[in-house]
């Protein structure tokens, strides 16, 4: 029995390490100053998929990412970590997609993949923090969903059991397959597996990357078919173009402002006894404390 898992992953700017040069003078984001990384919670999702692959027979882990051509890096990193294959969904037509247009495009790509038993993705991406794409894909595919997953505990007889981490507690739920699961950052981190996978997949590339390579690898990509990363555009998926990109995005950005806080004139104090005592005295006198 084959069991096909699709992992949805996104390449994101590392918004957690925003330096001073991350914003341009005009208030727009300087993407070049932010390193592109594997969205952290998507790595948690990949880990859940890889654990199932280690536990069960016949599991294929296929990583799907939508983004510019350089997002192939996400698929390569997934291969290093133990995924079986991957696909980059790329094209001008996808530009300007909000979460809804993104989920439409992803759902069209997943449909093309044939029998899919389980879709896993991170709860949310750090560049938008919306947590919308997972559930929106599930709805587009008519699948049930389990969000905020911390651990996929069991897969038996066409059902999946998942432990969820909520704001104020935990839930263990069971539902039918196929299912879409979004994974929380509190789930197990994606630990590196075999270093030899990195060697094996070092030259994995999409067709356009293979063309751009300066070195001629001869028939490497025909003799080692696993090195081929799929690259799909709008021509490869069945879709209606009005639901893609800008026209498929109901939300519009009216305005973007960089955040500036009004500075106060602050009083500078030292940790000396006298300074702290004066401050505490003042706070007690004006009834801020006590």
């Amino acid at each position: 029995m084959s069991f096909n898992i699709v992992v949805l992953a996104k390449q994101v700017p590392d918004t957690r390490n925003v330096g001073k040069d991350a914003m341009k003078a005009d208030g727009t984001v300087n993407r070049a100053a932010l390193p592109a990384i594997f969205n952290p919670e998507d790595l948690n999702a990949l880990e859940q998929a890889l654990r199932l692959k280690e536990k069960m027979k016949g599991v294929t882990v296929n990583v799907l990412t939508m983004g510019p051509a350089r997002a192939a890096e996400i698929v390569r990193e997934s291969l290093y970590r133990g995924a079986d294959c991957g696909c980059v969904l790329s094209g001008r037509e996808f530009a300007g997609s909000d979460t809804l247009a993104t989920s439409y495009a992803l759902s069209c790509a997943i449909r093309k993949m044939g029998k899919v038993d389980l879709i896993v993705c991170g709860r949310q991406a750090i560049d938008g923090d919306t947590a919308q794409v997972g559930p929106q894909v599930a709805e587009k595919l008519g699948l049930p969903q389990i969000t905020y997953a911390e651990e996929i505990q069991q897969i038996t007889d066409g059902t999946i059991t998942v432990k969820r981490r909520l704001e104020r507690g935990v839930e263990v739920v069971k539902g039918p397959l196929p299912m879409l699961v979004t994974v929380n950052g509190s789930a197990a981190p994606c630990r590196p597996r075999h270093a030899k996978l990195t060697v094996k997949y070092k030259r994995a590339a999409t067709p356009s990357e293979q063309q751009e390579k300066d070195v001629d690898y001869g028939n490497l990509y025909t003799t080692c078919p696993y090195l081929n990363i799929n690259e799909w555009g709008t021509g490869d998926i069945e879709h209606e173009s009005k639901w893609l990109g800008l026209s498929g995005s109901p939300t519009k950005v009216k305005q973007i402002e960089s955040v500036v806080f009004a500075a106060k004139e602050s009083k500078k104090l030292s940790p000396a006894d006298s300074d702290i005592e004066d401050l505490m005295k003042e706070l007690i006198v004006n009834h801020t404390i006590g």
Partner: protein
Amino acid sequence: MNNIFVYLEIEDGIAGDVSLELLTKGRSLADQLNCKLEAVAAGHHLDKIGKQVFPYGVDTLYLADDKRLAPYTSLPHTSLLVNLFKEKKPQIALMGATSVGRDLGPRVSSALFSGLTADCTSLEIGNYQDKKAGKTYENLLYQIRPAFGGNIVATIVNPECRPQMATVREGVMKKEIKDENYKGETQQLDVSNYVSDADFVIEIIERHIEKSKVNLKSAPIIVSGGYGVGSPENFQLLYELANVLGGEVGASRAAVDAGLADHERQIGQTGTTVRPKLYIACGISGQIQHIAGMQESAMIISINSDPNAPINTIANYVITGTIEEVIPKMIKYYKKNSK
């Protein structure tokens, strides 16, 4: 028709704070738009909800009572809202940016092809000009939210699609009773007209939900720690100070990520928004996303060994020193001189 809908999040037959905060905001938006405020509750034993929510200015309360609707699962609540929205055609729909609202909202928006903006920090009414199409839209919902790790604030609109949907975190909006005797009407929904049996596919095997132990929102004094606190032992000093002053302990995202504090103590755009009368920031550098969640504090004291920490620019008092040195002195002086 074309009213404002708030989805009420129900736990044990009571609507949660986040829903009451949304009703307060929804009421003021409805007044501006001259439309009605409607609320929908799905669950079981909902007889107390009316008494609880009408004072917030709810004109119509829809009750979908079915034992299978509690606790929340995705598909039945999605079907209920999708079908109810198709029938009532609200112009705006609001829900909490909680594990329920963030599970439900995207599904509903995907089914209705309506735009959804997550984690809004402000909601306003205004016009929008689409210059390319040469069209002006009046009275749209401005959905204002931080993006890019809080470095920018974006105003999002949904010109064409309805309802305009938004989620808001707990504690971001203020909760305020409009009128204790506000008169609204209750409508019981026949659940079978909205939800199909096939929607009940998820079985809840175990469930442990705890009442929140931390109440940052109503704490008058907050002693908050950042990554700079350094160790759990030093964080203990913050608890001691908060305890002596009668306050609560908060934390920055960096401190929570480093495991120094629980997530429920997190203050900022991805945590709770607070407005205490005194905020003592300990070892917090002051990333924008943190400052956005506490800048309305009446008084801010920053204790930081770095004299150039960004948070110092918005603090009333800046103490350049270490937590270990400063906090014990504050505790000692307060114990000696209060009362």
